[in-house]
């Protein structure tokens, strides 16, 4: 059983192989074959992950004898060196291997990635069924993405991690621009890629900083070395902030959040998998994974917490004002990622990971449900035209309701427990202000999620023609929806806090990895009563959000009609996404284009002028020299002879 860990590399390899088969031979194996290969490879990967995690939870001590495996019993960490990659500068130089690492943290993530990934693959078979072109391409990219994500999570060194990191970025770009014949889709893909690159530059610099200080790019020595005082500790602040830049880009936090809403140009299952459940959480994973480095620099943690809380609130306000179904979910995702960063920032690493998992479940179900709705309405995404779909799409409604309740933080759905764990982490860590921000965000969250549900499913259809022919999606789509809906309901069970007699299994499972997490601050609140009180308070606030949404969109209370007008200009700004894109356009792109213009002038005048001068000179000389060229071969031969005679004369002694 335990020797299974030697075949760790099969976990990412299976989707890679699937991608290669689907991508290169999709034309021959047909749509059915592509679907089977794509889903099968991810399913295989899932099964292997389950087996691997089971092995990890077993007795690791017996593994030592196996070749290529390194065991760290204390951290329950298994490192497998698959092959050598870079070896420069002799034995003391830089050595990087393709090595994979399975520890409780990555174990959790591979389960989520392959599990949710498999469900979304399955869903995609139904969702993409009407796609004429690019069916195989879609599944190849999706499989490639899964493989890259697994590589990211399993990578035991920063370069391997970075390969996965860039790989998921690439797949994200490819899938956002999946409908590349539409200019705006292609543009969205480019935007995502470019914004990500800005963060990635920070990631690379951070990795190099850590390497300079520690002399190794492997995770283990860095994480172990940063605990002791030394050069590594001195660069911890710079290194962690630079790494965090990468995380900000990948997880769409302020100020690099602009790409994620545009990324909704891709097919909806892609949004569910990449832009909600997995890839965007890579930033959170990175910060948790490198947690020891962040802990070594308390200022960095504070920055993480601040940016997380700010993003959570900021994105939630925008989500309240959007009418595009996927845009709402996109901003919701940004907001929830903000919560995760808030959790990490206040030192509640386990809570952040807990929220990452539950978020994967309920956001996936929300996206897939949205996809189901869009599918039923033949591509319509504007909530302003929907309404009254509940009876026509019962399964979707139930599932999305479960997801929405989880997102809103209603007890006992999964999201309640995880969000509360984060908020409690903030409060108990003494970050009262951040806690208040989080609570406010929670209220907004409840409001926009119910606004979304009500606008789609309740009331009367605002566009009869659109809604009339709507129907429930096929089972291959509703099946995954149901599974994810159930998970949204019960997913919280893995992390039920001790206070309500839960096991906090997740926290204990992650303990070996998160040994370095900071102890709760002294000035924080610690009593059990306070914890219960905080839970009740957040529940009340969520309920308030629900009530507002109910009054505004179902009961159509009078003041609810007036509310947005009263909140002007705030609501207008939120609708316009606070003009962040426009700001970037003016403040960064404008000067940049000006600079380009100046360089262009320089190029046209000075550089081209020089080149033109050269050809003009050559042209002028050639104008006269061409009279030497008679066009008669024998003249040339004569010149040749005279030249040869001259040379002979010169070399003769």
């Amino acid at each position, binding site marked *: 059983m335990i020797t299974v860990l030697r075949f760790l590399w099969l976990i990412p390899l299976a989707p890679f192989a699937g991608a290669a088969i689907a991508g290169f031979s999709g034309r021959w194996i047909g749509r059915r074959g592509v679907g089977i290969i794509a889903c099968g490879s991810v399913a295989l990967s899932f099964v292997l992950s389950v087996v691997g995690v089971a092995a990890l939870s077993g007795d690791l001590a017996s593994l030592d004898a196996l070749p290529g495996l390194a065991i760290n019993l204390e951290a329950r960490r298994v490192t497998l060196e698959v092959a050598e990659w870079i070896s420069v500068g002799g034995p003391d130089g830089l050595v990087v291997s393709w090595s994979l690492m399975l520890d409780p943290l990555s174990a959790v993530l591979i389960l989520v990635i392959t599990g949710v990934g498999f469900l979304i693959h399955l869903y995609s078979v139904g969702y993409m069924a009407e796609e004429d072109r690019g069916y195989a391409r879609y599944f190849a990219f999706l499989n490639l993405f899964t493989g890259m994500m697994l590589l990211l999570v399993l990578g035991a060194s920063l370069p391997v991690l970075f390969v996965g990191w860039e790989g998921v970025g690439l797949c994200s770009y490819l899938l956002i621009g999946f409908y590349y014949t539409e200019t705006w889709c292609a543009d969205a893909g480019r935007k995502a890629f470019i914004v990500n690159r800005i963060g990635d530059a920070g990631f690379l610099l951070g990795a190099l900083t850590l390497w300079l200080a520690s002399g190794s790019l492997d995770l283990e020595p860095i994480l172990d070395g940063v605990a002791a005082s030394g050069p590594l500790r001195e660069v911890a602040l710079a290194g962690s902030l630079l790494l965090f830049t990468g995380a900000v880009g990948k997880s769409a936090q302020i100020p690099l959040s602009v790409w994620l809403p545009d990324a909704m140009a891709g097919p909806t299952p892609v949004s569910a998998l990449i832009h909600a459940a997995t890839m965007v959480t890579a930033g959170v994973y990175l910060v948790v994974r490198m947690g020891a480095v962040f802990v070594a620099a308390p200022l960095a943690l504070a920055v993480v917490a601040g940016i997380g809380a700010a993003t959570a609130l900021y994105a939630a306000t925008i989500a309240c004002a959007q009418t595009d179904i996927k845009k709402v979910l996109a901003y919701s995702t940004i907001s929830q990622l903000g919560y995760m960063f808030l959790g990490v920032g206040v030192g509640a690493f386990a809570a952040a990971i807990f929220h990452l998992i539950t978020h994967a479940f309920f956001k996936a179900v929300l996206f897939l449900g949205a996809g189901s709705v869009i599918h039923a309405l033949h591509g319509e995404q504007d909530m302003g035209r929907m309404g009254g779909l509940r009876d026509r799409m019962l399964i979707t409604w139930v599932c999305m309701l479960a997801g929405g309740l989880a997102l809103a933080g209603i007890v006992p759905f999964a999201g309640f427990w995880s969000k509360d764990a984060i908020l409690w982490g903030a409060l108990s860590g003494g970050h009262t202000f951040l806690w208040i921000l989080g609570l406010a965000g929670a209220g907004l969250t409840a409001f926009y999620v119910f606004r979304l549900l009500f606008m789609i499913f309740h009331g009367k259809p605002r566009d009869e023609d659109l809604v009339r022919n709507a129907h429930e999606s096929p089972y291959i789509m509703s099946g995954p929806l149901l599974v994810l809906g159930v998970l949204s309901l019960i997913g919280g069970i893995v992390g039920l806090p001790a206070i309500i007699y839960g096991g906090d299994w997740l926290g204990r499972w992650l303990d070996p990895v998160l040994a370095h997490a900071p102890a709760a601050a002294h000035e924080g609140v610690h009593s059990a009563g306070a914890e219960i009180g905080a839970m009740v308070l957040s529940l009340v606030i969520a309920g308030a959000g629900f009530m507002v949404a109910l009054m505004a969109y179902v009961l159509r209370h009078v003041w609810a009609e007036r509310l947005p007008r009263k909140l002007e200009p705030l609501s207008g700004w939120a609708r316009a996404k606070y003009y962040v894109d426009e700001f970037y356009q003016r403040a960064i792109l404008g000067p940049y284009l000006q600079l380009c213009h100046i360089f262009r002038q320089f190029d046209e005048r000075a550089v081209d002028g020089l080149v033109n001068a050269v050809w003009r000179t050559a042209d002028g000389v050639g104008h006269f020299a061409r009279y030497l060229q008679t066009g*008669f071969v024998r003249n040339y031969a004569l010149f040749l002879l005279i030249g040869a005679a001259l040379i002979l004369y010169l070399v003769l002694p």
Partner: protein
Amino acid sequence: MSLVWMLTLSTALFTVGVLGVLLRRNAIVILMAVEIMLNAANLALIAFSRHLGSADGQILAFFVMTVAAAEAAVGLAIVLAIFRLRKSVNVDSLNRMKW
């Protein structure tokens, strides 16, 4: 049969070839003159080979012959193509490649 005499003959043959290239207009004759030059070089090579007692010269001559075969094949093919185009193998009729 000293080396000097051999080289004299070789030089003379080479000069004949050179003059053939310079004075004749028939492309085929020019190619023949080139062959004469190659042969003159071969003669020099073999004479030196004999004089120095080293087989290298003979091997070089062997290579020269092979190259000459390739040259003749391509050269004659070009002449044939030119003839199809111009109905003539007069090299002076091929003066289009000037300014």
